[in-house]
């Protein structure tokens, strides 16, 4: 596999796994938004997610995607670091690029940390214990202010990560060009905001309203 | 009979090159592998020659003082490259290109060489397109052209305002292909410091590795000088900071005759100079004269007010403006050739009509072009009764598309918006037509030593037309030298490798080392630039656009004094076995200080005005250059005899068989 051992190939791999996670996030958000529809809606959605064969097949693939994206990200970051052994004493990077684009590893690793928490809080109980009312379970969790706070911060970080990641992945996969450039950039911003606000609004809604 | 043999083939002019190619000696492909060629300089001429010779099978060693062949100063050529393609159907032909070039050169170039240049010009365009040079195209996908000074047809091909860059990158890419194959051995950051002559033949060079300071010997069966012109003798010019005459001058000192050193081109459209700190002048492409109109105020009081910064040029009414080129040269107008346009600017400024604080600038105004294009665009877009603002906006958009990068460059340097106030321009040294004397085969008077591109003298006579330098560089490198060098090398197939441990190499290396040691140990008081600036001032004031016998005599004296002072008082810090930019400059300026004197001597010797060489004593009542054909229809080739002042003149008579010699008129 010469392709994936090259810098461009590795980046392509990063972009592909990233785009896969982008799709997953959207599905996840749609499922979560059913929380606003009350217990019945969410429980039905939850049941669907927990039993649909396609989703079950995709679960390990998704896990693999996460792991691959994270590991490759770390490898690439290391390679990039050693590409400039002596740094600048004065570097005005904000003049030419966005903080979010330069700090994907920071936002990425923090999201990774949150992912652990998330898996412990939801995924494992959902899978291992018999919870009949998923809706209740979720609402209960968001009564905890610390948890809600972490949750919101994580999704702001995720939004930042996506703000660069979305359009970056479309450049790396070669989809961007002069014509689509604007559209891709705007879509990236819109998507990131939707994801960040969508997930956070659920947390905030249940914390404040309930 | 002169000892100069130009080796021009017999026969009608249009058959000379073909016949010559058919009859010269060739080197068998298998034998080419055993032959080494050294090329000094990797601009358009050197780069294209290196690539082509390597493609043919020779082992090429190419040298550049820059860190990459791609940085040679050919890259700065903006406007375009001429070729007699006649794609526009405006009556162009090889003959017309030939005629325009001869006439543009004020009948001081060698007819046969110029015809050959015109003949191969078409192949250059074909070759460059095949290489992937992105020339400008029209909406039908075919190549676009524009007009340049001194011609009545549109034959200039271009790639935005970066034609030289694109052509050089084309040659560079061809070189890269050969470097990767090992056929070209590239020596970046190396400077040639002498040519080595063995038994009367050029057999190698001494070069300095500019990073380590090491002095190296390199041998070859032939040496090609493609190191460009000597315009930096003026200190301020449009040349690159590193452009130098050392390779050509060292070749001259080893026996190659130097021809017509006084033919220098002063380009009319450069950004005027600012203060003493200025290190270089920036050219604004001649293509701007397609659309810009050149003027100065007609009234002295307006000029005075402009000089004091009290008047806005836009406030000067049309009737108080003097469009002097249109007035003096109605048929060519703003597209009059460079020498004529430059002189006309100097004439107006000397008369007190200059428009900036130094009084050394004229306007290049795009207002009427903006109006013209604006109205045209309004028509095209079907806008009925457009407002004046709309017309200006539309017109400015057209101008921006055509010259945007140049306007931006101007704005950065001068800090004024050329869309709104007219650009200020003034002539500056840009190109040197003179150079090493070469025969029809491009060989100098030293066997096996060739000179191509701007480094030789052959094709532009006393003045070069715009967009012809790129043409000549590539013609020499791609299509002339690769043939003619074979004629000479055919006798070298059994020679074998040239050893570098011979006394000739040793001696040359020793002389170089001694000179470097002298510089390093001289406990001087002034930096190299101090002397270079002094030389430049003498050259500009007395050997510049207008020359007089008196001024030239003074210049010769003054240059000699500066040279003596230089050798006594130059100061070089640092070490010689290390990167030392001051040491590099010292060597170059030492050579300029000798060349400058020969330059002035040649100008003094040529008692006539022709092209870029304007002797104030020789002008018509209307102030035009007056040639003295009976006495000066020759190439002045100078032989070095130990001192520039004692250089010996050899004349190559110029015969014009295919063209009628007449006064050069652009009226």
């Amino acid at each position, binding site marked *: 596999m010469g392709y994936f051992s090259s810098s461009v190939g590795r980046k392509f791999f990063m972009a592909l796994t990233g785009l896969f996670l982008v799709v997953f996030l959207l599905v996840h958000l749609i499922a979560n938004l059913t929380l606003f529809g009350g217990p019945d809606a969410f429980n039905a959605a939850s049941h669907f997610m927990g039993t649909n064969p396609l989703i079950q097949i995709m679960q390990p693939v998704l896990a693999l995607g996460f792991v691959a994206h994270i590991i490759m990200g770390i490898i690439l970051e290391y390679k990039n670091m050693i590409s400039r052994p002596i740094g600048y004493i004065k570097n005005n990077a904000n003049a*030419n690029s966005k903080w979010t684009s330069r700090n994907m590893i920071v936002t990425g690793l923090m999201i990774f940390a949150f992912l652990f928490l998330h898996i412990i809080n939801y995924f494992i109980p959902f899978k291992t214990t018999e919870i009949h009312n998923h809706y209740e379970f979720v609402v209960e969790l968001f009564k905890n202010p610390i948890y809600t706070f972490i949750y919101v911060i994580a999704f702001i970080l995720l939004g930042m990560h996506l703000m660069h990641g979305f359009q970056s992945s479309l450049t790396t996969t070669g989809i961007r060009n002069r014509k689509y450039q604007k559209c891709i950039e705007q879509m990236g911003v819109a998507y990131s905001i939707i994801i960040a606000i969508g997930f956070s609004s659920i947390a905030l809604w249940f914390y404040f309203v309930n | 009979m002169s000892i100069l043999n130009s080796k021009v083939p017999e026969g009608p002019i249009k058959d000379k090159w073909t016949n010559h190619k058919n009859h010269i000696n060739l080197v068998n492909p298998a034998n080419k592998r055993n032959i080494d060629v050294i090329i000094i300089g990797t601009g358009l001429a050197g780069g294209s020659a290196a690539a082509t010779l390597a493609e043919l099978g020779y082992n090429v060693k190419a040298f550049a003082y820059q860190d990459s062949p791609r940085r040679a100063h050919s890259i700065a050529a903006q406007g375009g490259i001429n070729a007699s393609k006649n794609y526009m159907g405006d009556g162009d032909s090889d003959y017309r290109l030939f005629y325009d070039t001869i006439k543009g050169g004020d009948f001081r170039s060698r007819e046969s060489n110029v015809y050959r240049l015109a003949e191969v010009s078409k192949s250059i365009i074909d070759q460059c397109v095949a290489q*992937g040079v992105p020339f400008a195209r029209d909406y039908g996908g075919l190549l676009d052209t524009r007009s340049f000074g001194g011609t009545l047809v549109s034959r200039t091909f271009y790639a935005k305002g970066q034609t030289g860059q694109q052509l050089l990158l084309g040659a560079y890419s061809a070189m890269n292909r050969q470097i990767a194959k090992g056929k070209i051995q590239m020596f970046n950051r190396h400077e040639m410091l002498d040519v080595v002559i063995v038994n009367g033949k050029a057999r190698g060079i001494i070069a300095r590795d500019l990073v380590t300071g090491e002095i190296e010997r390199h041998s070859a069966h032939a040496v090609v000088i493609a190191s460009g012109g000597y315009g930096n003798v003026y200190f301020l010019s449009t040349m690159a900071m590193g452009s130098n005459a050392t390779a050509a001058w060292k070749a001259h000192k080893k026996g190659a005759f130097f021809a017509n050193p006084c033919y220098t081109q002063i380009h009319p459209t450069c950004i005027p100079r600012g203060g003493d700190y200025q290190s270089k002048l920036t050219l604004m492409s001649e293509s701007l004269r397609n659309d810009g109109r050149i003027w100065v105020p007609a009234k002295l009081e307006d000029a005075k007010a402009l000089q004091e910064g009290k008047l806005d040029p836009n406030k000067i009414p049309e009737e108080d403006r003097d469009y002097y080129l249109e007035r003096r040269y109605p048929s060519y107008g703003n597209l009059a050739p460079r020498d004529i346009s430059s002189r006309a600017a100097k004439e107006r400024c000397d008369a007190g009509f200059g428009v900036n604080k130094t009084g050394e600038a004229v306007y290049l105004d795009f207002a009427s072009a903006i109006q013209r294009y604006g109205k045209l665009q309004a028509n095209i877009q079907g806008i009925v009764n457009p407002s004046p603002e709309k017309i200006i906006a539309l017109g400015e958009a057209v101008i921006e598309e055509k010259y945007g990068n140049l306007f931006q460059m101007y704005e950065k340097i001068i800090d004024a918006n050329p869309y709104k106030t007219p650009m200020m321009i003034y002539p500056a040294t840009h190109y040197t037509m003179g150079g090493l004397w070469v025969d029809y085969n491009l060989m100098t008077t030293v066997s096996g030593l060739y000179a191509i591109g701007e480094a030789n003298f052959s094709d532009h006579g006393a003045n070069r037309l715009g967009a012809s330098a790129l043409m000549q560089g590539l013609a020499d490198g791609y299509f002339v030298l690769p043939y003619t060098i074979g004629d000479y090398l055919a006798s070298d197939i059994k020679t074998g490798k040239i050893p570098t441990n011979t006394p000739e190499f040793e001696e040359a290396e020793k002389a170089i080392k001694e000179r470097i040691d002298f510089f390093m140990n001289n406990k001087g008081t002034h930096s190299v*630039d101090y002397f270079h600036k002094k030389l430049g001032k003498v050259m500009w004031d007395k050997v510049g656009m207008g020359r007089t016998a008196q001024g030239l005599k003074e210049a010769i004296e003054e240059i000699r004094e500066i040279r003596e002072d230089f050798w006594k008082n130059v100061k070089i810090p640092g070490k010689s076995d290390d990167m030392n930019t001051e040491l590099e400059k010292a060597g170059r300026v030492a050579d300029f200080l000798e060349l400058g004197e020969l330059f002035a001597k040649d100008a003094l010797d040529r008692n006539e005005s022709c092209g870029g060489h304007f002797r104030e004593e020789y002008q018509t009542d209307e102030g035009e250059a007056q040639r003295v054909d009976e006495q000066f229809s020759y190439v002045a080739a100078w032989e070095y005899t130990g001192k520039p002042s004692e250089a010996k003149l050899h004349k190559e008579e110029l015969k014009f068989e295919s063209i009628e010699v007449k006064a050069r008129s652009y009226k």
Partner: protein
Amino acid sequence: MNLTLKIWRQKSAQDKGQIVEYKVKDISDHMSFLEMLDVLNESLVAKDEEPIAFDHDCREGICGTCSLHINGEAHGPDRLITTCQLHMRTFKDGDTIFIEPFRSKAFPIIKDLMVDRSALDRIQQAGGYISVNTSGNSQDANAIPISKPNADESMDAAACIGCGACVASCKNASAMLFVSAKVSQYALLPQGRIEAKDRVTNMIKQMDKEGFGNCTNTGACEMECPKGISLNNIARLNREYLVASI
């Protein structure tokens, strides 16, 4: 104006190097940045000190020789220019200016502010050309019409001057913008299509070998590029490379 300069000085590739502070006085607004350094160098020579080595040649923004990381940006704070086109009017009296060399593992320092960018040459040698010999018999230049938008876009990519500002600005020291400009120039022309696959594959291979980092599309290169080479070229490079690998 009077300025404080903090300049990286390093005797040779092996030397460690450090920032040295200099003061310059009476600098004119109209000077170019390099002319300001000339003034400083003249004063150093007068004091028998070694002048600061920096690369420069054409001083009109086209040869790509000049470099310098000025106040944290390649070619200084202004846009679409090279260092030699940067003018002192960009700065104010009393400013402190940091001047550092372009930094990358692939650009070893030669001396002071001078770096070795031959890695970029080697990438070009790996495939940045169209394999056509000089013959004088190539087909007529107008034999293959090329659509104006393609010709123009090819020209825009070809405008790259190989200065290395993209590498210097990139947080990863990636040379993708440079490589993509060359690949794009040829990819957009019919003449260049014939070798397109080998070209992109070989150039990327060489790029990786030289030790440049990976592109993460931060866009810093595009912003700092003196010739405004677009990030779209990087997308095209990725596309070309993907197609070449399938």
